[in-house]
């Protein structure tokens, strides 16, 4: 019941927000619903409910291992949204607020989906619900980004449906009765038809990988993150990508049970390393600090994919990394949003010296950059260290070396852009409408809080979370 509430509360909130008449007070729905969702989510995390194996939706260990991070990120972004939408008075926010809440509800459904079809429906619905978010700024550039997002994302989602069909057919061909819950598919295991399982794995990896933003299916990401507002970027990078990642994990456990774990591991490792390398190269070239965040997100999706390929230890580390990446990325996106508002441009050609204009946001941006490039003692350092440890322990020395080289290049790329934005003498700032951007508490506290959460996650990884990740790994690898 509580698990269903996680889905229903945001959806009801979305309907209410769509009906709410006042543009000024409507954004308050975001923190209110976010708070209820987070409280419920963490209560479920502390006292996990029993999930019947037949259930199509349920707060199972994998959902418990990822969904609270999304919920926490959404709540903090919701708090940030209230002052943010106040300075964006010129844009009506009815569709924006309703769509954002719908995205939260559908993400909760996607994380809790224990049925192949339900998982696909939730992911498809998230894709569509995010469209108005990208189009919020209503500029031709935002339209271009939305069009590309729909075209690439729509193709990805279509391929994942085809992959789901193939997996369904493999079960049917192996004598299954058409029960497509993951539990039933894993139980059928070796009875699944191998050629169809392999076809399904490729299509599903490409399909959900598109949603996650793995290279070379990442092309929508820089455009979408570059043109969307900071909140949307944070939710997409920390929430939507994680639902695609947990989808890949669930499907991978089916492929494992069919006896094709080697193929799955090799493809995940290859696509992960390729994503990291591609992202690192683009990071060295980009001249736009919001697109930079998109490439950094691609890099971290690559890290997750590598973690997922390294057996139980690696998956544990990857779940840790989902948390540290979501929270740190959130801080970066929100502070970059502040800088973007103050500077009036996302390009290095127009922006410099932001440390003098918006000192607090710039400080968070720089610290967040060090956190995301795995400087101790923030969360990403420890989770990436765990992934490296898993790689060495499973004797993937070459992969570990490639991983480190990519991290190094990404570090060069990120520091290059971030210090170009922060240092130097500021240009004339008053261009953007003549009104100066003020760093109010409401715009500074949320990213700062996310940064502290990332620090706290690194220094004192709570035993509760560690146990949940262990339980999720046990769910994904039922017979080691």
């Amino acid at each position, binding site marked *: 019941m509580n698990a269903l509430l996680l889905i229903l509360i945001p959806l009801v909130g979305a309907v209410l927000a769509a009906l709410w008449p006042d543009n000024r007070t409507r954004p308050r729905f975001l923190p209110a619903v976010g708070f209820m969702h987070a409280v419920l989510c963490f209560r479920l995390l502390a006292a996990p409910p029993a999930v019947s194996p037949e259930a199509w939706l349920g707060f199972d260990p994998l959902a418990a291992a990822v969904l609270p991070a999304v919920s926490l990120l959404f709540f903090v972004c919701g708090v940030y949204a209230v002052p943010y939408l106040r300075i964006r008075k010129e844009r009506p926010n009815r569709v924006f607020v309703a769509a954002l809440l719908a995205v939260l509800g559908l993400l909760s459904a996607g994380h809790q989906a224990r049925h192949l*079809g339900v998982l696909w429906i939730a992911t498809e619905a998230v894709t*569509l619900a995010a469209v108005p978010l990208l189009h919020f700024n209503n500029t031709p550039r935002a339209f271009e980004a939305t069009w590309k997002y729909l075209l690439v994302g729509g*193709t990805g989602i*279509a391929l994942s449906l085809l992959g789901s069909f193939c997996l369904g057919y493999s079960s049917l*061909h192996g004598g299954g009765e058409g029960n497509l819950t993951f539990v039933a598919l894993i139980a059928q295991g070796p009875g699944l038809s191998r050629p169809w399982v392999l076809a399904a794995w490729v299509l599903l990896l490409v399909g959900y990988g598109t949603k996650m933003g793995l290279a070379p299916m990442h092309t929508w990401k820089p455009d979408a993150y570059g043109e969307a507002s900071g909140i949307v970027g944070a939710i997409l990078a920390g929430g939507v990508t994680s639902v695609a990642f947990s989808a890949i994990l669930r499907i991978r456990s089916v492929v494992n049970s069919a006896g094709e774990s080697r193929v799955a591991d090799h493809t995940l490792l290859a696509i992960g390393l390729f994503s990291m390398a591609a992202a690192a190269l683009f990071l060295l070239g980009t001249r736009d600090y919001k697109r930079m965040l998109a490439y950094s997100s691609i890099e971290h999706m690559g890290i997750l994919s590598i973690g997922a390929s390294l057996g139980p230890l690696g998956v544990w580390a990857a779940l840790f990394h989902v948390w540290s990446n979501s929270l740190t990325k959130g801080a970066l996106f929100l502070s970059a949003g502040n800088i973007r508002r103050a500077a009036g441009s996302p390009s290095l050609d127009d922006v410099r010296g932001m440390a003098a204009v918006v000192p607090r946001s710039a400080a968070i941006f720089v610290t967040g950059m060090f956190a995301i490039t795995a400087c101790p003692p923030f969360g990403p350092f420890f989770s990436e260290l765990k992934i490296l440890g898993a790689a060495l322990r499973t004797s993937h020395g070459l992969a570990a070396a490639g991983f480190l080289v990519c991290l190094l290049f990404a570090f060069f790329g990120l520091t290059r852009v971030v210090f170009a934005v922060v240092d130097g003498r500021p240009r004339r700032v008053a261009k953007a409408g003549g009104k100066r951007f003020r760093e109010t508490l409401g715009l500074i506290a949320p990213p700062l809080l996310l940064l502290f959460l990332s620090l706290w996650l690194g220094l004192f990884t709570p035993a509760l979370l560690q146990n949940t990740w262990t339980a999720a790994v046990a769910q994904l690898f039922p017979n080691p």
Partner: protein
Amino acid sequence: MIPALNLLIGLAMGLNLVALGSSRLPSLIRTVATQGIALGLMPLILEGSDLDWRIILVALATVAGKGFVIPGLLKRAMRAANIEREIQPFIGLVPSLLLGAGGTIAAVALAGALPLLPEHAGSLLVPGALASVLTGFILLIGRAKAISQVCGYLILENGIYLFGLLLIKATPLLVEAGVLLDLTVGVFVLGIIIDRIQRAFDSLDTRKLTALHE
């Protein structure tokens, strides 16, 4: 039952090639609509005598959505944008036809290599599905006008629907979920129409969508 079904799938595969060869948008939209209606009739033939209300519902929704609603929206978008032809596609008409024909042959060959249940062995469902997915990709990549790309997406989706027919008895829910893909198309087209009203996207030529790059 299988011969009648194969006839319809063959028609759909032929329509793929017609779509690849047409440069005028109205005829492209008509082709896609005809294919959608042919696809919508298939579950009825496949089930034959024992018709379930859910399957009738799927058939009706498919015929209405793919055959009438989406083509209607596309025509409206086309009139709003005032364009009739696909001039200078990225991949020319003749090369795309050749690619499509080659793809169809490859699809038949590939489908022979995949193991099928005995009741599906004689049907063209798998080759038809693969060929349509390929055709859809060629149109998505090879055409510059947004409306042609949407038609390509529709054909891609039709291919997936064809594949879904293999599963319609065992897991109707998964197949019904495919209707949501039509919703995606709806969003595409509405996007075009809304944007036309706001005049941000003048010629519907995706070649002009190049502001965002490295």
